[in-house]
């Protein structure tokens, strides 16, 4: 089907086109405790086509996209492409050009053995040490190999193969007739048995503490420490604000070469986009539009250095050297994790759903488990919520020197935000 589509596109009069063909082979296993609920196999191909139309006067450009099923007939495929050409003509955007081939990029097509990868996950989960008071309620294992080919009318024709895995786990802890659960979601390239086991044991410890947690006190404003994967939400805010779509739409006023904050009372952030992180499920050579991904410093000591984003919005800002990165690394700060833990502070290790709104800067999260350190003693607490605005909190961020990797993010192992609103229930 791909060859048929390409043949139609090359014969057509459209201004430009892009085609992405992703073939996914996936193995999935669903468990209730350690008994197999269901096993699943996936073999699917998705071919996405985007067609661009340039107006006669060259003043506007439109695009339209669709997926052409591999089971489509040749007539159906041609009709879909013709329909795309018409639909693209209805859209009036400013013109831009597509990425051109980068011969330096190369390709990466390693052989991925799904059976071996799945076996590693199955054995790791089977062997996690459990006790009568802490155990695994259920889990789901997803292992896949994705083969991606991307072509465009500028001559890009690239292919890469990458692994993509996920384990979703629910952990129970119980004592004196009371039981709680914790949800965890681990993404990676293939199975990292050491990290998975470590993180599950940590979750069980968290479960033990939640069983004896007291109601969160009404703290008003407090310093809040983030020491889990939730920190990624905080740092995603900065990456989003450096996206050309945000900048062009005026939802971010961060200018290159300028500080993102009038004054810093804490650490100044440095964030890089990186092409590769160990066993990340997001290691790619090319972005979604065929641009080569490379390492680049986005934010340096609180000063915006480089925007990222797709071709259209980057082009509108007059930028050529941009792409859509998939891995990020935040530099460590100036404080040890131990120093940051000097109270009083609230260390939240389990939220219902921690969110940072990149548009408004608002942060929210209901507290399922936190440790309240009043300066003298530390007690586990639960209930209530935190809220605040990154617009003001960014000037009072304190980062640990130590860093930790959560799949496609390397972040400081501890991040302290000063002056967060804490709604307690005590």
């Amino acid at each position, binding site marked *: 089907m791909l060859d048929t589509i390409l043949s139609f596109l090359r014969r057509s009069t459209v201004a430009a086109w892009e085609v992405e063909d992703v073939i996914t082979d996936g193995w999935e296993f669903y468990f209730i405790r350690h008994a197999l609920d269901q096993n699943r196999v*996936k073999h699917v191909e998705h071919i996405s086509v985007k067609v661009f139309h340039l107006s006669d006067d060259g003043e506007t450009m439109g695009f339209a*996209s669709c997926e052409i099923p591999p089971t489509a007939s040749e007539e159906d495929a041609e009709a879909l492409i013709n329909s795309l050409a018409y639909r693209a003509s*209805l859209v009036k955007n400013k013109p831009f050009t597509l990425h051109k081939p980068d011969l330096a990029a190369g390709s990466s097509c390693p052989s991925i053995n799904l059976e071996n990868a799945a076996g590693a996950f199955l054995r790791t989960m089977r062997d996690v040490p459990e006790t009568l008071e802490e155990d695994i309620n259920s889990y789901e294992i997803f292992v896949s190999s994705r083969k991606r080919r991307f072509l465009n009318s500028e001559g890009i024709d690239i292919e890469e193969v990458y692994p993509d895995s996920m384990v979703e786990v629910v952990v129970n802890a119980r004592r004196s007739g009371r039981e709680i*659960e914790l949800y965890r979601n681990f993404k990676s390239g293939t199975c990292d048995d050491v990290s998975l086991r470590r993180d599950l044991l940590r979750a069980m410890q968290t479960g033990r503490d939640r069983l004896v947690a007291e109601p969160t006190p009404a703290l008003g404003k407090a310093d809040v420490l983030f020491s889990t994967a939730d920190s990624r939400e905080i740092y995603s805010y900065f990456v989003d604000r450096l996206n050309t779509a945000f900048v062009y739409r005026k939802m971010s006023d961060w200018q290159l070469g300028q500080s993102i904050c009038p004054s810093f009372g804490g650490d100044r952030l440095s964030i890089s986009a990186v092409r590769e992180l160990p066993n990340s499920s997001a290691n790619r050579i090319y972005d979604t539009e065929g641009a080569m991904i490379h390492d680049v410093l986005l934010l340096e000591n609180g000063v915006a250095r480089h925007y990222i984003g797709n071709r259209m919005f980057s082009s509108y800002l007059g930028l050529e050297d941009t792409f859509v990165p998939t891995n990020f690394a935040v530099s460590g700060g100036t404080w040890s994790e131990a120093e940051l833990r000097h109270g009083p502070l609230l260390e939240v290790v389990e939220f219902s759903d921690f969110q940072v709104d990149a548009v408004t800067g608002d942060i*929210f999260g209901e507290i399922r488990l936190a440790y309240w350190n009043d300066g003298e003693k530390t007690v586990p607490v639960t209930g209530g919520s935190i809220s605040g605005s990154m617009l003001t909190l960014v000037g009072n961020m304190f980062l640990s020197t130590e860093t930790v990797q959560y799949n496609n993010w390397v972040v400081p192992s501890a991040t302290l935000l000063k002056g967060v609103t804490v709604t307690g229930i005590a």
Partner: protein
Amino acid sequence: MNAPFSAYLSGIRGGVQELVRFLRMKYDYVSVLATDSCGFAVRISQRSRSVSSETMTTERGLVVRVCRERQYSEVALNHFDASSPASVAAEVEKAVEQQRSLLASVGTQSYFTPLLPDEPLVLFAEKECEILPEQTDLKELVDWLTILSDKGMSHSPELLDCVVTAQSTHICKLFLTENRDLSQSYVYSEGTVVAVANRDGRTQTGYEGVSGLCGPELFSQLEEKAEKSVATALELLDAGPIEPGEYEIITTPEVSGLIAHEAFGHGVEMDMFVKNRALGREYFGKRVGSDLVTMHEGALCAEDVTSYAFDDEGTLAGDVTEIENGILRNGICDALSALRLGVAPTGNGKRENFEHKVYTRMTNTIFESGKDSLEDMIASVQYGYLLEGVESGMEDPKHWGIQCIIKLGREIRDGKLTGKVVAPIIMTGYVPDLLGNISMCSPHREVFGTGGCGKGYKEWVKVSDGGPYLKTKARLG
């Protein structure tokens, strides 16, 4: 007109029946769900525009479910050759057995499940709509949405953008077993208006949407929504933070719907009962809300984005009374979980698409109406807030906690709206307290279907929810 059933699915029906027949020789139970859903999505912004043929639910593919030795397995594929069902059957068997071999080598035990019943049933359902997505005049739609966006922008120089979206999907599904032959075709549509306003570096958004079990004729309702969305975004520029605490609150129908969804939508998804992950299992027949609380769930409860004729396991759609006058009565259940629990399935087995596993999922989740006027409700509040607009929510069926992110609160003092607006708001609490404190309900009720619902942080499906204005108490931060 009736939304016509997919010609593609009609064309492969014979091949799929053969596939079932071949696999039935090897397996105790075989079903196939084949899908062919098309649509469009138009997005008009002041800064960029796009037209796509993909929505959240467009798909074409096939998923085969087989059972042997009381162990269920599935294979999802989208290159089905209807002229070679035997080779597809061989491919399915090879894939399943390769996995079983690995599982055996690891020493994995099975969670044995009885065989799904397969009583004969034939259904061919084509639901009505005025316009099909595939026959929509997209030029006219793009032009009209552009006018809407421009008109929205004309209200204030503080507006950065007015983003208008419109999407419509024609769902077609075929479900076959040895004895069942079910076909359905229906169209649903949804549209949104997001106004973005900025003052002194502070950005706020207004959000309004429309949805329904209908074609693109729905989008005429967007004009009124655009005005409201713009007004909200501008109003939020002046909003201040809320003083954290417990308040009397009145929830608008949209917020009531979010509470319904997060509280006893997720709370009675019975696949969670199988895993002992939901407290609701121990509360059937017990009080979980005030006398004013009655809640329904099911594809037949409303005509909105997920009002199908049968679910993704071939169970006919239902209408379940979950809570009746404050007493928890029933849960919702997919077919395999129903077998494990010894109950009847309720037509709530849904997949994100053919590639994904079935879970128990919500369809339309709705509070019943009451008799109190909104005016009386406001007049009864000494100090509290009228909560409007939803951002997101998170379930906690095991512990009955609830987290709802609300767009804004309008202050009420001494029975009157003061004009003061606070935002944003995080509402948290214990579900039985929140529902137990419901003291007034309005007759007016609305249903909203522009959002999606995940199970944990994945498996996104369309749902709708709603209810009347409700008065209760909650912790706001």
